[in-house]
């Protein structure tokens, strides 16, 4: 029951008294009491205006059959008449009517307020619960409703149920030593019974419960509710109290309401989490597939993200104006990692023999071996000539033979060296190759042929590296295909930059890169970071045939030239060196023999 005072408003009562007062004879004194308070008075005041004073008339005011107040009236003796009794009855009757109407209104309002309270609670809980995308966050939001608010519970916990083996795991809890107490609750026999209870329940006076062995001394009563959606049991909410009569039906009602919302939020969070796991898993599978395609680039797609993230972290912290706008939050980190893992996904369709082409004459078979065979034929021809000349009695036969062998060996060694593609091919080099090619040899069918085919000459004369123009084009295709493949993925907003970051890793600051020939200012910072990460990984990767793993110093030297040439972003490269990214990565992934001293200062600026 509410306080009686609320049923008679002083302002209104005072006004009512003021209006009625002039009807009384002069000198009349009136006081109105209700709920133990004097609400209003008219006429001269004094201690003799009380219930038991002589000459005072009392008119009672009641509430639910009990006297809760009164109207007191005292007239000067000479003015007394029967009319005052009528006046008092009339006034009290009207006051009584208001009190009763107010009382009725209050009980309705009480009920309405209870519903309103529920609605407000739900509205807040729904907003908060549905805002959480992680199961643990949903559990935390749910528990917050029982912890720290009015009528807080001593302990609370949310357990998740494993759909496969029906086991329960604690994911969130509050209360003194809760993280220690609730795991022990799972072990109890009572918990097994609670978990099987489909609707949840209250267990007050826990000490008397047959299944309870006092496993947790602080728990004197329990309230539990399954977190269920469409009959699927996702977990359990458990509240515990130190008091033996810890929970009421009202607590249960409130908990049920919150749990109904929490359960669907939890389900959404679990679905979301499952979905969130699928995409990165696919990305990883693709990266692994690309890495597996060529033994020479193994691990490339796994290591480039590492370097890229390390460098991005430094750019995020750098206070240089160039990186002021660059922020690396969790979302951006995720985008960069995915982009880095997928940057070479176009290589899926690049033929292996081009990806793996380690020397100029590499093809489906190594053509240098064929050339070696032809040289062997020439060596034997020379031997035969020598035998023939000796038989003819030519004195210098042996000497000529030795001369020719030496010449052949030198030429072959020269070709083998050119084949590696480590050196720039000068016009003299090209001239010598053409000279060698012009030699003749005889094949098995007796046909006389040039020592090197036109195509072999073409490949051996590749000026830089091992790829000829056509093959270079095929390799460059991978960047186009990467962009084309990624453009077909309907990335969510948060991942919409993946394609730009991944597709720009072969662009150059001066606009001479591929596939789009974008210039530095058209490239995002993450795209420029990707380029550096890609090159550094490739230069230091150890598993290349015909080439020893590059040392740190050599890789930095090469990249320094790239910076000077307008290939890579100089500021990012400086950061890469000055912040020690190269070394941090090297210590983690490179062989000790590759890690030599780098004079960073020499390459800065």
């Amino acid at each position, binding site marked *: 029951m509410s*306080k009686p005072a*609320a049923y008679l408003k*002083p*302002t209104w009562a005072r006004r009512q008294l003021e209006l009625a007062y002039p009807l009384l004879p002069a000198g009349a004194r009136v006081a109105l009491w209700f709920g133990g308070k004097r*609400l209003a008075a008219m006429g001269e005041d004094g201690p003799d205006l009380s219930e038991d004073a002589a000459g005072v008339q009392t008119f009672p005011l009641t509430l639910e059959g009990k006297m809760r107040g009164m109207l007191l009236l005292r007239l000067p003796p000479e003015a007394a008449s029967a009319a005052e009794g009528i006046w008092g009855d009339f006034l009290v009757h009207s006051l009584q009517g208001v009190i009763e109407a107010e009382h009725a209104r*209050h009980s309705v309002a009480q009920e*309405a*307020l209870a519903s*309103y309270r529920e609605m407000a609670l739900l509205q807040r809980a729904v907003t908060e619960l549905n805002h959480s995308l992680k199961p643990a966050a949903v559990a935390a939001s749910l528990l917050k409703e029982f912890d720290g608010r009015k009528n807080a519970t001593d302990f609370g916990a949310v357990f998740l149920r494993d759909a496969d083996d029906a086991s329960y795991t604690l994911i969130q809890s509050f209360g003194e030593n809760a993280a220690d107490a609730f795991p022990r609750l799972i072990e109890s026999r009572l918990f097994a019974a609670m978990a099987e209870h489909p609707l949840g329940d209250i267990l007050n006076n826990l000490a008397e419960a047959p299944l309870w062995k006092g496993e947790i001394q602080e728990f004197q009563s329990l309230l539990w509710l399954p977190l269920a959606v469409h009959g699927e049991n996702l977990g359990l909410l458990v509240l515990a109290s130190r008091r033996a009569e810890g929970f009421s039906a009202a607590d249960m009602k409130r908990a049920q309401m919150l749990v109904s919302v929490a359960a669907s939020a939890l389900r959404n969070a679990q679905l979301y989490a499952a979905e969130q796991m699928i995409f990165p898993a696919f990305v990883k599978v693709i990266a692994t597939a690309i890495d597996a395609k060529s033994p020479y680039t193994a691990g490339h797609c796994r290591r480039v993200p590492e370097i890229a993230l390390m460098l991005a972290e430094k750019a995020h912290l750098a206070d240089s104006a160039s990186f002021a706008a660059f922020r690396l939050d969790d979302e951006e980190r995720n985008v960069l990692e995915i982009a880095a893992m997928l940057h070479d996904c176009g290589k899926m369709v690049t033929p292996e023999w081009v990806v793996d082409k380690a020397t100029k004459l590499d093809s489906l078979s190594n053509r240098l071996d064929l050339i070696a065979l032809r040289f062997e034929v020439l060596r034997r021809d020379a031997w035969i000539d020598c035998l023939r000349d000796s038989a003819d009695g030519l004195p210098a036969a042996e000497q000529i033979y030795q001369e020719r062998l030496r010449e052949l060996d030198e030429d072959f060694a020269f070709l083998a060296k050119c084949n590696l593609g480590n050196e720039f091919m000068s016009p003299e080099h090209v001239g010598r190759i053409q000279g060698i090619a012009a030699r003749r040899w005889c094949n098995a069918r007796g046909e006389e042929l040039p020592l090197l085919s036109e195509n072999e000459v073409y490949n051996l004369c590749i000026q830089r590296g091992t790829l000829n123009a056509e093959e270079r084009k095929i390799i460059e295709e991978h960047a186009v295909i990467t962009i084309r493949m990624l453009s077909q993925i309907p990335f969510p907003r948060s991942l919409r930059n993946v394609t730009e970051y991944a597709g720009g890793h072969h662009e150059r600051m001066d606009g001479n890169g591929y596939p789009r020939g974008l210039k530095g200012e058209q490239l995002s910072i993450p795209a420029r970071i990707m380029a550096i990460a890609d090159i550094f990984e490739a230069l230091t990767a150890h598993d290349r045939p015909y080439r020893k793993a590059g040392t740190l110093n050599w890789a930095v030297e090469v990249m320094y030239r790239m910076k000077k040439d307008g290939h890579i972003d100089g500021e990012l490269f400086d950061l890469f060196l000055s912040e020690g990214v190269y070394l941090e990565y090297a210590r983690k992934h490179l062989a000790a023999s590759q890690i030599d001293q780098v004079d960073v200062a020499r390459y800065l600026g």
Partner: protein
Amino acid sequence: MITQNAKIAIVDDEVHIRALLEQTLEDLEGEPEILTASNGAEGLALIESERPQLVFLDVMMPLMNGYDVCAAVRKNPELAATTIVMLTAKGQESDRVHGLEVGVNYFMTKPFDPDEILDLARKILQVP
């Protein structure tokens, strides 16, 4: 002297909001006197005559809106001690800047949480 109880005014054109707020505030210690008005003009007159310490003020009301009531109260130096809590509907949160400009002390979003209303009223009136 009659009563020294605190006074709280509720100014809202919706009768059920007045009733619910009134019901909520009854749980306060010290039995504050609760006054109500159903439009802005009436509300301002009530505040001027009764000098409540605390006013719950709706925004959208006939005759005079909550902002104007608040601004008028702030212009009157005799009402300087009035704490004004504005009740905004969901979605009106962006108007809070305007509310602050005209001198609103606190905001509550409807549907209000009765417990929050009580906590705030206790803080303002300094009752347990």
